[in-house]
């Protein structure tokens, strides 16, 4: 029953996209608020709570992630109301967009709640395929090319994940039979695994698939180009929901891998994320437009989250994760306004707002812009403190203290490059360039306010205690 | 021993019929009135009766070469795998010998093409050299891989072993070897994707170009050589890759063997009707695929044992 209510808003959206009146569209944001009810209910229920047998099981971790992505979903639905006023999009395409957004949301909800590797994969594939069309709603040739690109590379990444899942299943099947698909069974039996090598091969393939999907090392610019070519809500969905879903899978898989061989897992992820951050920080330094900038910074934060998680700082990872899930969609949604005078204008993007709405907008957008590089009141500041603390603990426990400390220092240097760039961009947005009038709609301000409230809620002691309880 | 000699005689007699059969099937599939299966014999007897003209420029090679084209092939006939269980066969001749004898025959054919100093002959010879140079490595790899599965390097012994113990556990590599060998069969006999034996189009012809100014009994010898070559390949394919039906009495086994030969000929005919001839410089690609499969067969056998 709870499951039904969870899936109701996206399914409603899917159904409404077939009704060709503009009034139904206005109702969608309201109905999407309804998703908060079952999520809140899930928080109150005893964990783990079986939503659908042992296939979909809600525990603290995925309820939290589900809450984050539901809030993002609501925000994006709000912002979608005014999509056609910022960019040129035909009515028919907009309906298609809603249709695939609904499917996307369903897929991701399944994937986040899954306790079953197969269902996790199916949901992810469904979400990936439906995004392809959402990219395509933009009628530019670039979007067309990138949609194919996304289809092909996304399919490869997803296939790698499935390949790894099959190998993991094969590693556990002699022990567990059909149950070898369930995350909790895998975790509970990790010390009795018959063939760890097979599991590790499978985990490595899965992890590489997940990393490619999030734009890590070999495919750094992949997501950035796609998000540039697509409309801005797509980018918000990517960074807010899709990457959350993918990351949730990574949390699950890496927990099992950590139970089997923590040292090797940590080294693998450390090397991978260092490579990623090394390239991404310089790409950010050269970024010339908001979309690519934010998208690359999304890759950076995902790398940090993965690193924090495997180095034992689960609290830091989850806090960072939550902050990123609110901040990044907010920023992506605000690019719709920020870029209304031209795509490649950093200078003056935060100037020229009038009226209450405008003032609230630029205040929030500026705040988010600074919060994303962890200026103190931001939750990211705390999460990075905790995360690096956990990494240093990990370094102390390992045999290669100096090398690890060197790696952490390198990481900090790379982060400071990003920090410098973001502050410079903020200053250029605020203090340079000509003043040009920009229109802000109430729905966007509402969406940003929701994200700001969510961000503030992350800092509450109650939330912190809850997050500490998850790890 | 009688069976052995009878088999060789049978193969010799079947050789022209098989080529006529391919032609007949192709004509049938193209809605033409098919030629008689005995057309090969008719051509042979007609050519024997004709006068043999030799170019003024030609040296003694032209008079000797046709015999030397045919004789290595006739020798190979003696080394083929047996067609019935318990029959006499030569067990010690391996892939190198058979490939070498085939290459010897091809060598004299090329020499014959060059000897008359015609421009077509030289062109045909160079093309033949080009193709056979690519065929040989794949051929050796394939037969080796099969011998490996059979557990004996001798081709005749391999055929016997395969019939005795079919390589069920090595089906994958066996299949790859079969694919490779079939491509080689087509390439080496100048069938359609590689060469079209029925036209005399100067752009494409290979085999025909070499024998353009041979006539009379010499031509009969060369034509016989071509048909014997096909029958050698077909019976190698039948012996190595279709090793069943051998434990019956000799007549029954021989009948089954003949059916297998006709099946191979039918497959070639159907393939010929369905494909277009490749451009000459695409032929290496086809042979490359054969090499890939032969190599794949070897590594699948070695690494995976499948």
């Amino acid at each position, binding site marked *: 029953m709870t499951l039904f209510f969870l899936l109701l808003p996206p399914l409603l959206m899917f159904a409404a996209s077939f009704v060709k009146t503009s009034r139904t569209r206005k109702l969608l944001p309201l109905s999407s608020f309804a998703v908060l009810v079952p999520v809140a209910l899930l928080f109150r229920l005893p964990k783990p709570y079986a939503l659908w047998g042992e296939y979909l099981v809600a525990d603290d971790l995925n309820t939290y992630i589900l809450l984050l992505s539901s809030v993002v979903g609501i925000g994006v639905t709000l912002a979608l109301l005014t999509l056609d006023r910022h960019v040129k999009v035909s009515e028919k395409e907009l309906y298609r967009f809603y249709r695939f957004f609904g499917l996307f949301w369903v897929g991701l909800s399944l994937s986040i709640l899954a306790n079953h590797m197969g*269902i996790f994969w199916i949901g992810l594939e469904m979400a990936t395929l439906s995004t392809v069309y959402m990219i395509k709603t933009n009628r530019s040739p670039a979007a067309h090319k990138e949609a194919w690109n996304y289809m092909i590379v996304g399919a490869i990444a997803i296939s790698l994940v499935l390949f790894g899942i099959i190998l993991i299943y*094969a590693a556990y099947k002699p022990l567990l039979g059909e149950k070898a698909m369930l995350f909790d069974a895998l975790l509970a039996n990790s010390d009795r695994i018959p063939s760890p090598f097979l599991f590790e091969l499978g985990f490595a393939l899965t992890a590489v698939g997940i990393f490619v999907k999030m734009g890590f090392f070999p495919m750094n610019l992949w997501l950035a180009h796609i998000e540039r070519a697509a409309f801005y809500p797509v980018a918000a969905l990517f960074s807010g929901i899709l990457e959350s879903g993918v990351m949730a899978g990574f949390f699950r898989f890496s927990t099992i891998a950590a139970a089997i061989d923590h040292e090797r897992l940590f080294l693998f992820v450390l090397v991978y994320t260092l490579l990623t951050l090394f390239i991404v920080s310089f790409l950010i330094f050269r970024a010339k437009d908001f979309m690519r900038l934010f998208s690359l910074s999304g890759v950076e934060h995902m790398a940090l989250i993965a690193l924090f998680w495997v180095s034992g700082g689960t609290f830091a990872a989850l806090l960072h994760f939550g902050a990123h899930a609110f901040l990044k969609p907010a920023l992506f949604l605000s690019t719709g306004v920020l870029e209304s005078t031209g795509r490649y204008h950093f200078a003056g993007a935060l100037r020229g707002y009038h009226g209450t709405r405008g003032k609230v907008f630029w205040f929030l957008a500026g705040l988010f812009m600074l919060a994303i590089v962890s200026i103190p009141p931001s939750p990211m500041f705390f999460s990075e403190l905790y995360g690096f603390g956990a990494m240093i603990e990990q370094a102390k426990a390992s045999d290669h203290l100096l090398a690890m400390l060197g790696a952490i220092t390198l990481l900090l240097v790379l982060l400071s490059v990003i920090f410098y760039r973001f502050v410079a961009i903020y200053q250029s947005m605020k203090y340079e360039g000509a003043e040009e009038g920009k229109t802000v709609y109430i729905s966007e301000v509402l969406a940003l306010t929701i994200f700001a409230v969510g961000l503030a809620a992350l800092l509450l002691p109650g939330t912190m205690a809850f997050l500490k309880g998850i790890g | 021993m009688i069976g052995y000699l009878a088999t060789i005689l049978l193969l010799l007699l079947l050789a022209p019929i098989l080529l006529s059969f391919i032609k007949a099937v192709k004509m049938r599939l193209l809605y033409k009135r098919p030629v008689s299966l005995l057309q090969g014999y008719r051509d042979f007897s007609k050519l024997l009766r004709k006068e043999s003209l030799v170019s003024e420029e030609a040296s003694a090679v032209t008079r000797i070469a046709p015999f030397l084209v045919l004789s290595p092939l006739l020798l190979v006939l003696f080394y083929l795998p047996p067609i019935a269980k318990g029959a006499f066969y030569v067990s010690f001749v391996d892939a190198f010998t058979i490939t070498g004898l085939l290459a010897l025959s091809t060598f004299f054919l090329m020499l014959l093409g060059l000897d008359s100093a015609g421009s077509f002959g030289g062109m045909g010879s160079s093309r033949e050299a080009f193709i056979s140079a690519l065929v040989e490595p794949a051929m050796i790899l394939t037969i080796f891989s099969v011998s490996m599965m059979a557990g004996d390097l001798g081709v005749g012994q391999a055929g016997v072993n395969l019939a005795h113990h079919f390589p069920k556990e090595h089906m994958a590599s066996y299949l*790859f070897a079969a694919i490779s060998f079939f491509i080689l069969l087509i390439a080496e006999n100048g069938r359609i994707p590689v060469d079209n034996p029925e036209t005399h189009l100067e752009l494409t012809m290979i085999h025909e170009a070499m024998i353009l100014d041979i006539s009379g009994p010499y031509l009969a010898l060369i034509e016989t050589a071509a048909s014997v070559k096909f029958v050698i390949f077909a019976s190698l394919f039948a012996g190595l890759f279709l090793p069943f039906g051998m434990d019956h009495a000799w007549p029954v086994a021989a009948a089954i063997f003949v059916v297998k030969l006709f099946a191979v000929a039918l497959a070639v005919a159907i393939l010929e009707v369905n494909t277009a001839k490749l451009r000459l410089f695409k032929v290496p690609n086809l042979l490359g695929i054969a090499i890939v499969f032969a190599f794949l067969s070897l590594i699948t056998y070695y690494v995976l044992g499948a």
Partner: protein
Amino acid sequence: MVDFLIGLFLATLITALFTTRLYRLLFWYSLNSLTLGLLALTVGSRIGDTAMLVSGGITIALKALAIPYILKTLSQKFRLSRQTPPTIKTQYSIILVPAILVFTFYLAEPVTHMVQGNANYVAISISSLFLSLLLMIEHRNIAPKIVGFLSMENALFLLGTTATGGMPMLVELGIFFDLLMAIVVVNLLLYREEVES
């Protein structure tokens, strides 16, 4: 029998790599899926697994018949180029393909002791995964890329069938559902392509 089918599977995939015409490519893909379906049927009837029999049947119906047919219709409807020359020259592929095979065969060697049943299948499915990747890389046109994606799906199915003795039914059905959705998305993407040009 299983060895034979698995050999045929790899052979059709390799032949598809060297194909330069779209319809031939679809034909080889269909043959590839057919051997896969027959493989699932054989393995399923040997170990008495109904789920695998069902998924083998669906594979034959969907991947060997429906999808090639749909792709052919789509390519006619949107006038896709029927000549799909690979960008990697054949002479390089001839070196590349055996290299990939040797590499993957040795890569999978340590795994072979850990999988129940015949472990060679893991090696073959990993190598067919790589070969499908090569199929996607070596073409610039969109249709062969889709075929490459589909044959990658086949490689995964092969692994699922042979290495684990059958995935749970739910997962198999989900994968088929996603495959259908992929075809729908491909159709929509192609549709837009025509409208624009």
